[in-house]
């Protein structure tokens, strides 16, 4: 991930966002956004996962520790899951992850969760724009999990 990248032309700070997209819906949604030429900021680094249920809380913590400025986890709407219960199980995990991360002081909006179906190309672009704006507003990640950022005592 390295340091956050400052886009030289527009001088605006461009956050680096790790996006865990579920293969069947959100990844397909992103694909549709691309095919449909719906513009969204090139700030997300997509990591395809078989299902939102596959997301281990450590992925999110490690992404923040390695220098991601934001994380987006996106899966199918409840009921659409290719594996029937993947996102239902994930939903409980995400609720607990989101609540605990805020509890330990991670800024609101750093870690985002959404349900985007394969048909919602436009909505996917909106979600990414929204997440990018919020993370950019928060600025580079020197937060609680950043290994050589805010936390280290060296």
């Amino acid at each position: 991930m390295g340091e956050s990248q400052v886009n030289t032309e527009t001088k605006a700070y461009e956050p680096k966002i790790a996006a865990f997209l579920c293969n069947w819906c959100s990844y397909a949604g992103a694909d549709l956004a691309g095919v449909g030429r719906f513009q969204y900021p090139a700030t997300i680094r997509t990591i395809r996962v078989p299902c939102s249920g596959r997301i281990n809380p450590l992925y999110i913590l490690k992404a923040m520790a390695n220098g991601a400025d934001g994380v987006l986890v996106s899966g199918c709407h409840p009921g659409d899951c290719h594996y029937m219960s993947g996102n239902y199980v994930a939903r409980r995990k995400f609720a607990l992850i989101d609540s605990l991360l805020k509890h330990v002081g991670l800024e609101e909006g750093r870690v985002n969760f959404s349900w985007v179906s394969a048909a919602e190309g436009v909505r996917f672009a909106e979600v990414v724009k929204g997440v990018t704006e919020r993370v950019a507003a928060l600025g580079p990640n020197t937060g609680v999990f950043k290994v050589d950022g805010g936390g280290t005592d060296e």
Partner: protein
Amino acid sequence: MKISKEKFGQSFDALTAEYQVVAPVSEAGAVNFKAAKSFSEVKQDYLNSKLPPKSLLFPQHEKLLSYVKDGKDITVKNELKVGKTVLFGIRPCDAKAMLLLDKVFKNDQYRDPYYFDRRDNTVIVGLACNKIAPTCFCSSMGISPACSEGSDLLLIDLGDSYNVEVITEKGKDLLAGLGELAELSAEEQAIVDTVKSAQTTSKVDVSTITAKLDKMFDNSYWDTLHEKCLGCNACSFSCPTCHCFDISEEVTKNEGSRVRTWDACMAPLFTLHGSGHNPRDKKKTRWRQRMMHKFNYFVHNNGDIACVGCGRCIKGCPVNMDIRQAIDGVNKAEVVVD
């Protein structure tokens, strides 16, 4: 000879200009050794630090090298940083522990520069113990609450002044900066005598332990000793003489650093081979290794028992494994004389 605490405090603050002065400081509810800006920060009435002062010479996490990879080339940089340090308020048990660590970090073939460059630039100002805790048993380990072994200067707290005793050359040079000393009054001399003759209430007998352990490797005593142990590193990380470490890499993209971190023989991964074979995979073998290393192997290699009786492992153990009971257990175990 004595110096008033008030004058000592001034020269202490003066020292911070030239030295990094490390002293017992109370932080987050515990007393530990940290760099102190002025004498006012120094905690006065403390038994001993929670974590051992070995972390100043042998930090828990230390960068050895850093490197940058570009393509096939590599540039490696030595990350050794050394500064002049004064360790103030070191208890006699920890001072002796430093001498034991010296025997580890330098052997007949190698000298560990990270430990020793710091060690050579450190002056140890020992502070004798006025109060003795029930878990201290340093008297049984060949030292005492006012022992000077390992200290360059030994202070004894007399209330509003310190009795100063020069032990080594380094101590003498440091003393020069402390200003002139005064004579002791009669009752102050009495305090010094009582502190010097004090013994710990808790006792263990380690006179025959090394010889006995020679014949005890396959003794059944090890079968039950380890049972309640959780296999964590609490005792090793709070022990002033434990010196085992791990070397690992921390990498982001093509920059990285080789890092040394504390490790412990109590963790199962300590001896895991790449092939999956692990000579010490059972908890029993790890407790046996702990006892054999501290009370037998270290004696054969370095002529000293690797325990100074500070009692930190006793207080730190979640299930109250007590090293004194383990020692008694070894003394009582019957050895089958072949």
